[in-house]
């Protein structure tokens, strides 16, 4: 009898989305920056959003941002998140960082109080259960220098098996 595959978060990414995942496997956050006009880009693109040049370099970005908004998802179209939501809502946030808007999984447990608009937040990347790197938002006080620490946060959230 064949084993039924476990549901994972979406594995689909575009070509440049796959490159984002390859570049972001550590504590540092790398975003594209245009070599011509210095404009930073997120979500990843093939040409500069500002000057249309196609020289976008992956640069390490200061990964402390500011929360724009937080939401609890009580429903999902995907089996992976639907399964998590059975226990409690899945929390995500949008974050302003380097003048970009980033969707992140919110590790609420790393914060001592409520996370609201304007809260400071640190962003790191980690592979989720699909094997793709995703953005996770934690308290700026959370220590994420070691891979084990980052993986533990992702595991506590339920993002990895």
């Amino acid at each position, binding site marked *: 009898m064949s084993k039924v595959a476990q549901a994972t978060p*979406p594995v689909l990414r575009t070509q440049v989305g796959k490159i984002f995942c390859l570049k972001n496997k550590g504590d540092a956050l790398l975003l594209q920056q245009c070599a011509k006009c210095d404009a930073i880009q997120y979500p990843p693109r093939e040409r500069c959003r500002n000057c249309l040049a196609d020289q976008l370099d992956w640069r390490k970005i200061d990964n402390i941002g500011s929360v724009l908004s937080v*939401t*609890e*998802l009580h429903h999902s*179209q995907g089996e992976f*998140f639907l399964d998590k939501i059975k226990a409690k809502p899945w929390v995500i946030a949008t974050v*302003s960082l380097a003048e970009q808007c980033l969707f992140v999984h919110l590790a609420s447990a790393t914060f001592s109080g409520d996370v609201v608009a304007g809260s400071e937040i640190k962003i790191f990347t980690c592979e989720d259960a699909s094997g793709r790197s995703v953005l996770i938002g934690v308290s700026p006080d959370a220590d994420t220098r070691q891979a084990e620490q980052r993986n533990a946060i992702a595991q506590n959230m339920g993002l990895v098996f």
Partner: protein
Amino acid sequence: MKQAQSYSGVALTVPVSFAYKKQDDEHGAQWYIGGVLKELIAGAGLSKTDIDGFAVSSFSLGPDSVISLCQYYDLSPRWIESLPYGGCAGVIALRRAARAVQAGDAEIIACIGGDTANKDSFGSLTSQFSTFTIDASFPYGEAGPNTPFSLITQNYMDEYGVSREDFGRIAVSQRYNANHYSKALLGHKTLSMQEYLDSRPIAGPLHLYDCVMPCAGGEGFLVMSTERAEALNLPYCEILASGELHNPHYSDEIQFRGGWTEYAKTVFKTAKLTHNQIDLVQTYDDYPVISMMQLEDLGFCEKGKGADFVRNTDLRFDASGPESRKLPHNTSGGQLSIGQAGAAAGFMGVVENIRQLTGQAEEHQVSDAHYAVASGYGMINYDRGLCSGAVIMTASEQTRSGGA
């Protein structure tokens, strides 16, 4: 900026709303679009060969498109448009078709939005909506447009002191309107404020009745010259002014305004109308917050005063509410109560205005409907809606005098 040319001589006619159904595992978008086309032709007393312009918007038509539909239905148009603009597709179709008729590029243009809805169609649409969706939003919870709109709604509530009850006024009044429109999929059920407030949570402040029900269906209208409409003895309405602007205010960190802020004043000035003279308005209501945003940005009230506006305005089609200020809004129920048939929802407002202004709304007819606004918004890419459009329409002199 040069002033836009007037729309004189252009007629909008034959409003069609077609075959709304919650789920359809049998028919594709081709069937719905063809069905609207059939009703447009019959409604105008024309033959298929009279249609020489064809504008289509659909999410589920692929791998077909407007051009392959020409072969599908043995059409030979000399003007075609594909309009992947979601909730703004109807307003944009109207604008493009009107200019084509004025320029003599086509004489009778069918403008149609249609989509099917099988059990997989909504999920596959939202999961691959754009590159930004694939790479940077869908992996974060797979919740489709509910995610950005819950964030936009929460921000709006925090910034402007809007309560869930304020949004509820929009949903509840639209349900009242839908109770008088036989094609509304939720029109057979009433909705009280308490039921709205008590409904199950979906994402953040969004609960069940803040979210549209995806469905199958079609909407469409014909664009032709006023001379042709009169020769065909068709009731029609005319365009006084319109505007569009896309990806507006892109430096705003979170969307709280749309493109209407930049052209609404000009549109009303061109139409030579004040907001008090508008008899009815159709906003694109994928979520109540966006309807409120449109009412503000179109100038019916100041920015941030939308909650106060809906608290003190009767939004029912028949002005039967207790509020002294009357503005019938989403008079057939909007997609919140009719259902969102994909791209057809982007045509709903224009079609409903044609219906109202030509006195064909039957049980949900607004009395003395002379001036109507339809607003479009759509294409939620990543964190915000990108398209905006608006049109002010008026009943023709011929219709007002009972000529047609």
